[in-house]
């Protein structure tokens, strides 16, 4: 089984029979399901050969019967194993984005109009999963893959195999569903504080600043809040265990704004700068203020909320990359 890696890769490319990635749903046609005996199957065949020779040598009529029955069993096992995989419908579900350094979890939906048991899916480098597929009810499989670099992480070719029912025969197929996972940059572990100052100075987009005039109330302090908004007096009045509170303001220009600017990050490695921006974006999002993002070629108008964060992270993830 020790095929040279390159040869194996070529076999797999050929075995796929289609140019990856394939549009979903992929139906594993007869032509792309391969069947070979497992090591157990080879042992079984060897045992049958010995039994046949024994039956001939000792003229055991019933020995012939038993040997041939078990031989037939082997043939039937091929059929069942093949049937367990062939015409399986593979489609992919939504794959939630992850940060670099995390595991990307791909959701695959396996659909079938007959019951299939004990399927195994695996990725060339990465996780594997075992699943049963009930009839007429798609089964959800998650395959985890380490996400190392930001950008699009395409689901690599996946292998599907089964040795059900007898473990003597292995049927397998490859497919490369058109699934990909967006990988955000890894948030920097150590990032400079949020660029409040710069953002005030350069904040042309909203009348500048944080609407300091109209005090609106308190909320729990979050690390990203500007220090001067902390309700120090309020805190001092209370005991030491009391939580820090942050003053919130409303004004004509409503929410506070901060600009996460590429220029504000320390010069150097692009990835490091993106990491810092990612960290900032998370902190800004957590602060609840409106915030905007400026990248060398593009910018995102200030906003807030999960969708805003997602858009920003997507921009960061795809910075300098083809968006498709």
């Amino acid at each position, binding site marked *: 089984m020790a095929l040279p890696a390159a040869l194996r890769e070529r076999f797999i490319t050929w075995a796929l029979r289609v140019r990856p990635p394939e549009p979903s749903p992929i139906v594993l046609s007869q032509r792309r399901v391969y069947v070979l005996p497992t090591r157990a199957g080879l042992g079984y065949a060897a045992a049958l050969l010995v039994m046949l*020779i024994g039956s001939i*040598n000792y003229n055991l*009529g019933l020995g012939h019967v038993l040997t041939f*029955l078990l031989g037939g069993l082997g043939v039937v*096992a091929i*059929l069942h194993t093949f049937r367990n995989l*062939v015409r399986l419908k593979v489609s992919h579900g939504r794959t939630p984005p992850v940060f670099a350094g995390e595991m990307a979890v791909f959701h695959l939906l396996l659909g079938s109009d007959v019951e299939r048991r004990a399927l195994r899916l695996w990725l060339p480098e990465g996780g594997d999963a075992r699943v049963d597929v009930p009839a007429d009810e798609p089964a959800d499989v998650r395959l985890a893959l380490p996400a190392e670099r930001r950008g699009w992480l395409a689901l690599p070719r996946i292998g599907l*195999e089964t040795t059900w029912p007898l473990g003597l025969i292995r049927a*397998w197929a490859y497919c490369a569903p058109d699934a990909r996972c967006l990988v955000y940059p890894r948030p920097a572990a150590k990032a400079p504080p949020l660029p409040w100052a710069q953002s005030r100075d350069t904040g042309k987009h909203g009348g500048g600043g944080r609407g300091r005039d109209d005090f609106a109330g308190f909320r729990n302090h979050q690390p990203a809040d500007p220090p001067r908004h902390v309700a120090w007096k309020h805190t001092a009045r209370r005991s030491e265990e009391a939580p820090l509170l942050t003053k919130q303001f409303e004004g004509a220009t409503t929410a506070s704004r901060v600009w996460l600017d590429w220029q504000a990050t320390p010069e150097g490695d692009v990835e490091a700068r993106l990491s810092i921006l990612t960290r900032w974006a998370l902190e800004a999002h957590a602060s609840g203020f409106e915030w905007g993002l400026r990248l060398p070629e593009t910018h995102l108008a200030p906003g807030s909320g999960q969708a805003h964060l997602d858009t920003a992270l997507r921009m960061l993830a795809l910075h300098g990359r083809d968006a498709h």
Partner: protein
Amino acid sequence: MAATRTETPALAAAQTGWLLAIGFVALAPLAPHLPGWLAGATLAALVWRGWLAWRQRPLPSRWRLTLLVLAGSAGVGYQFGSLFGQNPGVALLVLFLALKQLETRTVRDGLAIVLLAYFLALAQFFYSQTIPAALATAAVAITATATLLSLTDARPAPAAQLRRAAVILGQALPFMLLLFVLFPRVQGPLWGLPKDAGSGLTGLSDSMAPGAISHLSRSDAIAFRVRFDDAMPERAQLYWRGPVLSEFDGRTWRPRRELPRATLPYAEPASGGIGYEVTLEAHGKPWLFALELPGATPELAFATLDFQLLAKAPVLARQRYLARSYPLLRAGADESPALRQQALALPAGSNPRIRRLAASWRADARSDGDVLRQAQAFFLRQGLIYTLNPPLLGEHSADEFLFDTRQGFCEHFASAFAVAMRAAGVPARVVTGYQGGEVNPVDGWLTVRQYDAHAWTEVWLAGRGWVRVDPTAISAPTRIDLDLAAAVPAGDPLPLLMRAEFSWLRDLRFRWDAVTNTWNQWVLGYTPERQRQLLQRLGMPAPDWRAMTALLAALCGIALLLLTAWILRRQRRADPLARQWEKLSRRLARRGLGRQAAEGPFDYAERVARALPAVAAEMRGLAALYARLRYAPPAADRAKTLDQLRRRVACFRP
């Protein structure tokens, strides 16, 4: 491939349970053939393993197992005097099966146990290939297959696993049948059989001491079955000739040592004769049995100067041969003087009383024929009793039988008569074999059992040659005309099947025998010869291995296709509505407009309509039709609407 599963997972509790079960099921049919200590030890090991699994205790350490293997192998070696051969081999397999259970940790170990179980199922056939044995093997096969299933997927309940195993094995039956009939058979053995092969077979031995045949008479095992070409001869003519014993040491009769020859020492008569086919059970000795006197040696057989037929090797498997016999044939008129002289030898000083008596016959007689008549008259006068339970005899067995105890079985009669004739100067020898047999009314075959074993005498008369004299017939004529049960006094322990009060049992036995005979003829006796005959009858002009293999491959291919179609049939039986929609989508996919997974019929139709304005209207119509069939409550005209959709999809050419 690197991606193949290389790890062997640890066993789940259910899998351990299955492995134990297959251990018990595989051991059960073999247990009666194993030494008691081994069967007990194996059982103990299985129970121990079950206890360890139940209490979740760790398995014994490797060195302890090694010790057990060594001890067990030593025991087997001591018991059989060797580790090689059929019986020690089976014993070792059993031992390994039991001890392997004590170190099953992974699925691979489990597989080894299943394969061992298959081997043991085969080993059972060394001892018995009857229908019950086949049923026991079926149980082993189903359990072993269920165990294999559980090694791949341990979750289903035992009943479900067994059911699935039975179904899969059922699907394997057509292949088994094809392989059985068409797989080119090879006549074994391929190499020398171990010395202990065929031990434990019953049948006539090559010597006759007092008690040898009466011992056989307690067995109702079948010796051979006969199918006559035409009518069966009379019962009194059914003397099945076996070993001919000419050497006597005062107590035991033994055959003359001579080399077998290709042909009988007399010419086959041109006409007459009875043709028949014998299916001889394995008896571990080379003799073949034929009605007196056979005309020629069967195929692949030898003969002796004593008119006896021999197989080329000990009969270790059921064997069929054709023969033709001539009941009226007398042979040996030209017997060599040396042989005649040998047939007069008596050990010095043995049986003095009968010698004295014989000398007086000789003095009064004018010919050997006269001596014979006097001897017969003497045997009649003595009032000898034919019994299955004769008293034990001492040194002068003929004297004691004829003058003191006067009770004996056929070997006493034959031995004493031959001694008497020799003492009177008439060449005589003992012939052993079978006499009679029982016609099975179900299939018309004659069944000869061990209790039909018999011994009689042959004397050589000038001008006539060797003449059969059955001294038993003088005292117990019913033994020859009827059967053993009629001849022995009431109260003698008879084989169960010979007793009158069990006639219903006999009836049952007849039926069972007929089934067994069919089984023997067609399942166990399916030899290369019979395979050729059958295939010729089925219309294959020259069935050699090439033709058989080609036919086998073709038929297996057909069976495979049929089975594939059957197994995949459910996948073809998809929802007809979905099938139409799929068809439409496939057709559109050629234009790059395949339906997406999450797309409903109307969205899809709109997208297609935008891309292909030419078919927009039809596409929208189809979508509406599909949606109505799919989502509207079922209407009475559903079938018609579906048909309409089918036709419109068929015509749809984007």
